[in-house]
């Protein structure tokens, strides 16, 4: 059987890659893709703990499904915001959005 820690390490790597994308990319869509990678890493953790912690309960899978639902809602609203931002400012570069910077 595959050790639990292998799954957790893969999830940790996936989370770090996503976090790096969120923090350094200039393009807003690329930032959103990084967020999706991080959410996937969290889900992988939840499912791994479900499988190795208590596979007879469904709680872990319920959690993962709720996370997927929220991720779908987040992607829809986030991409709509990016499209609105492109329409108003003709840019998708997050560094150009500094209107609130005094």
């Amino acid at each position, binding site marked *: 059987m*595959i050790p639990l*820690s*292998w*799954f*957790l*390490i*893969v999830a*940790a790597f*996936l*989370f*770090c*890659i996503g976090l*790096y994308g969120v*923090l*350094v*990319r*200039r*393009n807003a*869509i*690329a930032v959103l*893709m*990084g967020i*999706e*990678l991080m959410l*996937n890493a969290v*889900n*992988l953790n939840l*499912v*791994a703990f*479900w*499988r*190795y*912690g*208590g*596979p*007879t309960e*469904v*709680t872990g*899978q*319920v959690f*993962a*499904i*709720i996370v*997927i*639902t*929220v*991720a*779908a*809602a987040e*992607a*829809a*609203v986030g991409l*709509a*915001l*990016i*499209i*609105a931002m*492109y329409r108003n400012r*003709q840019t*998708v570069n997050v560094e150009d959005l500094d209107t609130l910077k005094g």
Partner: protein
Amino acid sequence: MLLQAIFILVSLATLGAALLVVLTRNLFHSALFLAASFFGVAALYVLLEAEFLAVVQVLIYVGAIATLIVFAIMLSRGGVQRGVPLFNAEWAIVAVGVALLGGVLIVLLTQVAWPVSQAAPPADLIARLGQAFVGPYVIPFEVASALLVTALIGAILIARERE
């Protein structure tokens, strides 16, 4: 062990695709690598014997979210300036910080003795999942549906063309 070999191959493919998502200049290629990475995570769910979640992952992430991202890329094509560096000025500091976080996480994850149950998932897991959603988890379920409706209406309102 065959399972472990498959796990290593699948996770290397997933992590490689994820790295390419972050490092590729062409956004369209990024989106395709993102879909590949989602597929890899679905394969890991199969290895974890969560077949239903694997199907949900392919349907929602690969089918809906990746497609949505491709549409957003096509709709905002003109916003991508040529010759602008891919990363912002803080990329080196952030790389050190993220590497530190990854190192700490891996040390922690390998040090802790996780309690592992030997039980196998029940055969009627999907039926139990369905019952859980209308039984003990009915309120999160309803809140999730309200959230989805709100997000849908909100997304349409935000992205709508205004005269």
